[in-house]
């Protein structure tokens, strides 16, 4: 168990409560669970790394418990109850730098938990119907939440009583002066700036900029006809990958608002998308029970793994060796190419030169005549 957990490069949580690990280089999938104690209550809703070194995984289950899975040991080490199952499933689970846990459930209360007590240390009420909560990777105490009829709000956990740092305004009323429906499904913080990208259930993608005085979205885009359920930012910061309930995954350009390309292969609703932090790779999983890895440059499917249950969330173990340290792999490949070219030159030089001999001239003439005649015939 311990060996297999160290080999896996992608971890996924399924609806049956099983934590799955996939090793792409060895093309194997492992189930980390106790088969006798499976139950739908343990449905994994969120997965997050326990620390930056990626040695511990935290799972949020449907019955409100948060489990810790240690990759070194290959088993679950801890379980703690962090929420009421009646409040809906987990919509966000994040880890604070000082070692606390932040959870958010569908009814909208963000709770901060510490090791010391079994009660939440701090609570923030964000409104009803929260679909997702995400942490700002640069400023770890800021959390963004959004949901149905609940716009994007950014909260500062150090001042939980204060109103949100940024609260987005809905789009302008439409041409009939009716209020627009809003349903924020997923969001992400764009690195090296304050902007936040959100995708909505009404197939829109918005970019908000808290540093500007404008509370309405700075950029609006639409994709497809079905709700967008998952979002991820590749490196580069100029594009965003979105997936919808029909299995259409597209790369959208954030500068112009156009669709750059579509990643084909999925046939069920996309539940989770994640881009690798350094390589141009995106992993997707969803209701069709497959994990797919596409390359972002040309949109080709690199890996497809059948995992027998519907998948809810995924995590890439980006520091694993099988991805290759990004720069290292690149330079190795370049070296290999150069070596091959040198070898080829040597091969050509070593070959004997074959020169045409004089005797063949007459026969070549005849062959040319024949060719001419056959050409004439075809005409």
């Amino acid at each position: 168990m311990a060996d297999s957990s160290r080999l896996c490069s992608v971890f996924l949580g399924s609806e049956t409560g099983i934590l799955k690990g996939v090793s792409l280089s060895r093309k194997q999938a492992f189930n980390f669970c106790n088969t006798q104690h499976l139950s739908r209550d343990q449905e994994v809703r969120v997965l997050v790394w326990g620390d930056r070194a990626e040695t511990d995984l935290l799972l949020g289950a449907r019955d409100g418990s948060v489990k810790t899975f240690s990759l070194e040991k290959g088993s679950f080490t801890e379980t703690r109850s962090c929420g009421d199952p009646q409040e809906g499933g987990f919509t966000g689970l994040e880890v604070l730098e000082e070692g606390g846990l932040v959870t958010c459930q569908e009814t909208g209360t963000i709770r901060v938990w510490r090791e010391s007590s079994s009660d939440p240390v701090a609570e923030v009420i964000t409104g009803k119907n929260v679909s997702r909560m995400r942490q700002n990777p640069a400023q770890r105490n800021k959390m963004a939440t959004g949901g149905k009829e609940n716009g994007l709000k950014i909260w500062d956990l150090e001042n939980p009583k204060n109103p949100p740092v940024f609260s987005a305004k809905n789009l302008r009323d439409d041409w009939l002066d009716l209020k627009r429906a809003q349903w924020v499904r997923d969001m992400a913080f764009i690195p090296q700036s304050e902007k936040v990208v959100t995708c909505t259930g009404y197939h829109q993608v918005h970019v908000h900029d808290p540093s500007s005085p404008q509370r309405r979205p700075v950029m609006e885009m639409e994709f497809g006809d079905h709700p967008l359920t998952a979002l991820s930012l590749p490196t580069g910061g100029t594009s965003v990958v979105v997936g919808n309930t029909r299995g259409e995954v597209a790369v959208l350009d954030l500068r112009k608002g156009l669709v750059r390309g579509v990643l084909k292969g999925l046939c069920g609703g996309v539940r989770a998308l994640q881009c690798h932090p350094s390589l141009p790779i995106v992993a997707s999983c969803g209701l069709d029970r497959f994990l797919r890895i596409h390359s972002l440059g040309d949109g080709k499917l690199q890996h497809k793994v059948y995992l027998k249950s519907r998948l809810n969330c995924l995590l890439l173990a980006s520091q694993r060796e099988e991805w290759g340290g990004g720069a290292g792999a690149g330079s190795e490949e370049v070296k290999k190419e150069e070596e091959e070219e040198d070898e080829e030159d040597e091969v050509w030089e070593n070959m004997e030169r074959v020169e045409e001999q004089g005797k063949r001239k007459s026969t070549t003439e005849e062959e040319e005549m024949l060719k001419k005649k056959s050409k004439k015939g075809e005409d």
Partner: protein
Amino acid sequence: MDITEVPVSNDNKGKKNEYKKPKNKSVTKERNAVEPKLEPKLEPKLEASETAFPPTFSVSEIKNKQRRHHMFMKFKQEKSKLKLQVKKKKKKEREALGDKAPPKEVPKTIENQRVYDETTVDPEDEEIAFDEGTDEFSAYFNGLTNPKVLITTSDRPRGRTVRFCEQLATVVPNAHVYYRRGLALKKIIPQCVARNFTYLMVINEDRKMPNGLVLCHLPDGPTAHFKISSVRLRKEMKRRGKDPTEHSPEVILNNFTTRLGHSIGRLFAALFPQDPQFVGRQVATFHNQRDFIFFRFHRYIFKNEKKVGIQELGPRFTLKLRSLQKGTFDSKFGEYEWVLKRHEMDACRRKFQI
């Protein structure tokens, strides 16, 4: 004039050969005069090439349609003759060998050549067994609920669809047909749940013919959308038996091998009550072949231990799955478990999903 010097025997060219012959001969004489030296070298070369490769002459080069057609028919007849001869030879060889003959070759069919689907369900798989044991149909398969089906159509149905719905209601036990009255499905569903219905079947109609089926499992179950084709009502069936009785039929589900196939198979199985009444001797068959699901309804009788007689009753139709959505009917905001994407999935002829 460009004339091909084709080194074939003169008889080969067809019935209008006689007209061509003299022209050929005069031209060859001219050519012979011009190139006396090269000829002896040419001829042996041509003959050598003749035995090695066939002449580069094809029937399509003849411009005259009648002559070309004639040549082509001749060519075909020769081909079929050759084929017959080869066949006879093989048969003789086979009889001569007797027991030692190599086994007969199995012809390739698309079903034989089917690409192995990795989602094929292994009967001993624990994870899938757990998944199926706790999914939306578990209440039915554990015997807790009895099926109750509501059959309706799209708004303002016309003759054929109405008759199809009535006949479906006789085939599926405990089924009720209701007129649609333009009501929204999302509003019908909570009312059905309140009245303990387990299935909602909506037959969609286009130009007086049924062409779509939405099958929604009720408390919170998956919704499948099918395309219906080849509907044959009872009147159109040849040699059919009397109308089906009220006994609940047995159900046969053929060839639902993949995970998606299992889900659809269970969807169909849950339409019928769990205990079939063998007294009625009726059987409903859902046969999956090449992603098309064929529905047939028969009455059988065992004449003796080895022989069975069957009569086809009831409507017959073909279904093709277009999408399977998780949750009750919500085509705009629901999550799809499987969607038919024609250009991606129909690219390979030997790959099937169900």
